[in-house]
């Protein structure tokens, strides 16, 4: 079973600084370990930490509320996180370790390489993958024990395009990040843009992990005088790209891939002014899901910053997982838990709904309500999405 012997757990208390914090366990309670493997050191550490923070917040909350009950047995979570430096083979090794030493029924990982490396053996070794990636291949292969957390970006194409075309014009220059995600996004948006009668005048990508300066690329992207610039990637460098485009005299609008968040970009550009006319995802901070304000409040308290969607999604996912366990009546049967995710979604209390997730698809992907925002007159405005 996946129950750790409570007496083995050190009672290190709830300090959020220690990474694998064991919950305080009282008589008769049992512990369920949840695994996490992501980049906690190296260049991608900022990303890994944000994802982990979301999980941690949820776990702490659940434990502080006395855990959860299944058939009169009280359980608490023990989040065990391991660093994989963004390397797939390290993720695989970490997963083996988590299974061997902590018997984790679920392992979260926020990068597609690691997820794919785990998918090689997760059905055989029977654990559920909490996949934070919108890489389609992760769900396309029919892995029965994978849950994809973030929404797929398909839904953004239409509203983004129509907003940008209406407000700025038909000429698009694409300059997103060169990650797979960025490429997939571009491959989806470019044909769509053209279908709608637009013209794509430039299409290339920026590698934020290799380029020291973006001026060269932005100059090239702007040379055909586009009306709209499609950019994206981590918020901060994306913001730099936007800012430099303005410096180079670009006056059109930005269409911002969902990985970047307008509010985080604003922190870099200094004001929303240089982002005027942008269309992107609604920042979590401006979202009006039922559970958002409370989450933001709590997160700020812990980490002194406004959370992004990575943290938000992980937080929700953890809560859904708990509900699914309850619905399945088991903490250690990944199959049963997977089969009851939908029940978990339905059972999720409103105050936990940092995002509203309606359902889990056939392929194991969450379907989230999309919310879109634009910057108009130096302020964030919500754009209605008409399905």
């Amino acid at each position, binding site marked *: 079973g996946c129950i750790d012997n409570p007496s083995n757990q050190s009672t290190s208390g709830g300090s959020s600084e220690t*990474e*694998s914090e064991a919950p305080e366990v009282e008589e008769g309670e049992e512990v369920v370990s949840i695994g996490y493997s992501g980049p*906690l*050191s190296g260049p991608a*550490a900022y990303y890994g*930490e944000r994802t982990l923070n979301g999980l941690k917040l949820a776990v702490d909350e659940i434990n502080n509320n006395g855990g959860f009950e299944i058939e009169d047995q009280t359980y608490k979570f023990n989040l065990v*996180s*391991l*660093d994989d*430096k*963004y*390397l*797939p*083979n390290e993720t*695989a*090794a*970490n997963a*083996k*370790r988590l*299974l*061997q*030493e902590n018997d984790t029924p679920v392992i979260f990982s926020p990068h*597609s*390489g690691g997820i*794919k*490396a785990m*998918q*090689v053996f997760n059905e055989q*070794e029977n654990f559920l993958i909490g996949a934070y990636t919108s*890489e389609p*291949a992760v769900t396309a*292969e029919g892995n029965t024990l994978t849950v994809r957390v973030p929404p797929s970006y398909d839904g953004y194409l239409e509203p983004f395009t129509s907003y940008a075309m209406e407000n700025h014009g038909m000429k698009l220059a694409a300059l997103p990040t*060169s*990650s*797979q995600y960025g*490429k997939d996004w571009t491959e989806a948006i470019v044909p769509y843009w053209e279908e709608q009668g637009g013209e794509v005048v430039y299409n290339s990508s920026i590698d934020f992990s290799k380029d020291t300066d973006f001026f060269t690329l932005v100059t090239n992207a702007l040379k055909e005088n586009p009306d709209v610039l499609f950019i994206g990637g981590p918020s901060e460098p994306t913001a730099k790209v936007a800012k430099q485009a303005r410096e180079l005299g670009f006056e059109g609008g930005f269409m911002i891939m969902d990985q970047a968040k307008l509010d985080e970009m604003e922190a870099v550009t200094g004001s929303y002014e240089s982002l005027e006319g942008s269309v992107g995802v609604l920042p979590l901070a401006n979202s009006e899901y039922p559970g958002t304000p409370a989450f933001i409040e709590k997160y700020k308290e812990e980490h002194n910053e406004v959370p992004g969607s990575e943290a938000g999604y992980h937080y929700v996912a953890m809560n859904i997982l708990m509900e699914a366990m309850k619905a399945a009546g088991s903490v250690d049967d990944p199959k049963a838990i997977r089969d009851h995710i939908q029940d978990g979604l339905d059972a999720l209390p409103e105050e936990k709904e940092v995002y509203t997730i309606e359902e889990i698809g056939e392929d194991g992907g969450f379907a989230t309500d999309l919310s879109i925002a634009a910057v108009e007159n130096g302020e964030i405005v919500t754009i209605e999405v008409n399905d």
Partner: protein
Amino acid sequence: MVSLLKNRGWIIGFIAAGVLFPFVLPNAYFLHILTLAFIWMIAVYGLNLLAGYTGYLSLAHAGFFAVGAYGLGLLTVKTGMNYWLALILACLITSAVGLVVGLVALRTREHFFAIYTLCVGYIIYLIIDKWDSLTGGVRGLIGIPEPSNIGPISFQTPISQYYLIFAFLLFTILVMYRIVHSLTGRTFIAIRNSEDLARTLGISTMKNKLMVFVLSAFFAGLAGALYASFIRFIGPDIGYITIIFDLLTYLLVGGIGTLAGPIVGTFLIVALSQSLQFLQDYRMLIFGPLLTLLIIFYPRGIAGAYHDWRLKRKSAQRTRPQKEQEYFETEESEKQVKEG
């Protein structure tokens, strides 16, 4: 010949430990880590033959590792070729790439060779990363099959894969041992010690260097191919420079130019890095200085230090003591102003 017998003892011990391990400690995680470590060891042996015995420090080996891995991955996934055939082809492809690179790279020396090969390795990485249509780009390659059955033996379980890779490692060690203890090996060492002298002794240094380079690439490719079929997912990052630095670290900590070095170093560093996992974000805060200290206090690696220690003990009894072991690489430019 006495030392050979002693070596035998070590080797038998190592084989016994390797064979018995899964029974003594049936732990899936350890098994996984160890299998992976064996794969690294094979690559490190390849590197050792070149850097340790011939004196050419190649930083292109992560690239060769990736070529081997992608060779196997693409052949099996895209053409559906038989695993074993693909494995052989992958190694041959890597050797061929090694040959081409070596032909030019080996004209440079020392730092230039190191950086030249660093660039070659980086170009290989970039090509894998950019050539989406062939390699899948950053997305990587999924669905690489495990080794196909040989007659009744199948390689579906982690234990069977462990033994398979262990066997490859033993094969590698055997080949290395035989090369090093032969005229050919002496020739390599002669090149390491003084290339000019070797040439005036009638040794065709280019031919020999090229041979080592190709062979060394072959083992990097073999390791890469085994990696691909073990992890069964590969992305461009296996060709990135961090991998070559890892390999170098294993080699150096273990002892460059020694036969035991690759095993000792890889095992030690892998174990260390795994056991520091509890430090999470800050493990590099400990690992980094530890690595640096190891290098400072055991400059010849663990195996080298052991060797020195034995030498010292032996020489303490002799009338004319040995000089202190010097580093094998001498700064040519400093030691001799000019020939003649």
